[in-house]
């Protein structure tokens, strides 16, 4: 086990930690030319160039808005369906589970292309709502799965007790289920936001070039910006899930029976 432990830390550091650190270092220093004997020259221009781009700020706003919308709908669908799948037993349940997970396997590009005309017809093309709807496709199945596991771990006695004591479902949700499912809410937040931030093609198709999210600024940047600015942009990308994570964490503090961190 000791040998494994050392091997693990070496591998994990080399493969996962180091690239992130290199990205951070590159964003904070001028474009590297080690072969000419140059060392690191630290600067913050990359960030000031990046942040002075007005397109970046509006795209960040769009991305956060869309991400928050997608997250909210994911939580609603995930919690309701996850609860149903974990607590009900009925004929054909494996089939229902398979159907609900199926959208992960269908190419989302095909779905977006197929929906494009329909979206134009009902006026959802080129709108934020249209983009939020298409971003649901690659995210909701994961959320349902995560909440299904969370409800299964809660166990049915925990869910029957409030019912016997006469609580209504909404009261039960906020006082028992949500406080006990915080880890699941965190995972869903994280996964949903990152997946939503990763969509270039389907956002371009449904957003019609009018809803400019961060990926749509990132791709053209590649041809013009140097590696310092690109690295800074990459770090910027990772800040958004972190920011929304903190926001969700603050919202979770509002749940009943939460011990405030400063009162521990």
């Amino acid at each position, binding site marked *: 086990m000791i040998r494994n432990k050392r091997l693990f830390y070496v591998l994990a550091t080399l493969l996962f930690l180091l690239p992130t650190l290199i*990205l951070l270092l590159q964003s904070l220093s001028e474009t590297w030319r*080690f072969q000419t004997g140059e060392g690191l020259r630290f600067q913050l221009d990359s960030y000031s160039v990046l942040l002075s781009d007005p397109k970046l700020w509006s795209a960040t706003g769009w991305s956060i808005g869309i991400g928050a919308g997608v997250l909210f709908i994911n939580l609603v*669908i995930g919690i309701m369906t996850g609860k149903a799948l974990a607590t009900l037993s009925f004929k054909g349940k494996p089939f229902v589970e398979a159907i609900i997970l199926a959208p992960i396997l269908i190419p989302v590009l095909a779905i977006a292309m197929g929906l494009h005309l329909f979206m134009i017809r009902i006026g959802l093309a080129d709108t934020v709502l249209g983009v939020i709807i298409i971003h649901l496709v690659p995210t909701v199945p994961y959320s349902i799965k995560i909440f299904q596991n969370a409800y299964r771990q809660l166990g049915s006695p925990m869910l029957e007790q409030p019912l016997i004591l006469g609580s209504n479902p909404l009261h039960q949700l906020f006082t028992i289920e949500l406080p006990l499912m915080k880890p699941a809410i965190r995972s869903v937040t994280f996964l949903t936001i990152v997946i939503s931030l990763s969509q270039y093609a389907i956002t371009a198709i449904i957003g019609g070039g009018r809803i400019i999210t961060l990926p749509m600024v990132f791709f053209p940047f590649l041809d013009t910006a140097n*590696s310092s600015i690109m690295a800074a942009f990459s770090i910027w990308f990772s800040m958004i899930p972190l920011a929304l994570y903190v926001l969700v964490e603050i919202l979770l503090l509002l749940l009943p029976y939460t011990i405030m961190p400063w009162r521990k």
Partner: protein
Amino acid sequence: MKWYKTKAFYLFIPSFLFLLIPMYGLVQAFIQSLSTDGALTFEFYQRLFESDRFLASLGFSLQTAFTSSLLSLVIGVLLTRSCYQLLESYAPRLIVWLPMLFPHFVWGYMVILLLSESGVLSQLLQVTGVLSDSGGLPTLTRDASGLGIIITYVWKEVPFVILMLLPVYASIKPEYYDLVKNLGGNSFRQFTSVEWPHILPVMIETFLIIFSFTLSAYEVPALLGTTFPEMVSVLSYDWFYGSSWDDRPLAFAAMISISLIILVLTLLSYLLLSKRQWKAMRGRLK
């Protein structure tokens, strides 16, 4: 309790409404790949499978997606099985899941930064004198064999494989390992007779998820691929957004073909895991 049970079925309404979105999209894509001016036609599929550009693209896509998925799975299993006890604690898990913080194409940019001809690796090798000039390193990004795409996907999906497998490994009872050891089995025996039956269903599920994603995603190949051969997703996107509207049905036909491949593969893997075995496994690991 009956009242509670029937009422609880309303919980399925949102997911049912959600499912209408992908279903409708897929059906529409299928219809549009089969019709011109309202009439049924197979013209587009015929044009598609007579086009060398598409056939080369399809072969390239399948090969790239298969290699990426298989490599991710093998590396993920090896890492999980040797380190799952460590991964139960917080800090190691955080390190492993660090790549999940970034979108795929950002990780793709990281691969360019590290491994391109003028990238960090090439620079370091030149400084240390292993390479004499910047042409010495084989082309690893934007190459015709798809290496850059594969490297990006494997790097990004290994943490996902670990995420999927970790609960399974955590649920295997240590007594099984003791039994194998008692009977004189080695580590390989332990893998084939204890771990394999446990992880097989999740491995197949994970493979399908990664394979269908890598086969059809646009972003990474657009960033790290070349113009020939290109991934089907990139080709379809070009057809969809290209100058000529005549090519649009080709985009639908190409994406539907890809979807059919994934569907057949999914059905095959369901058959592979016979229904009873599948059920037994799910019961045991959840």
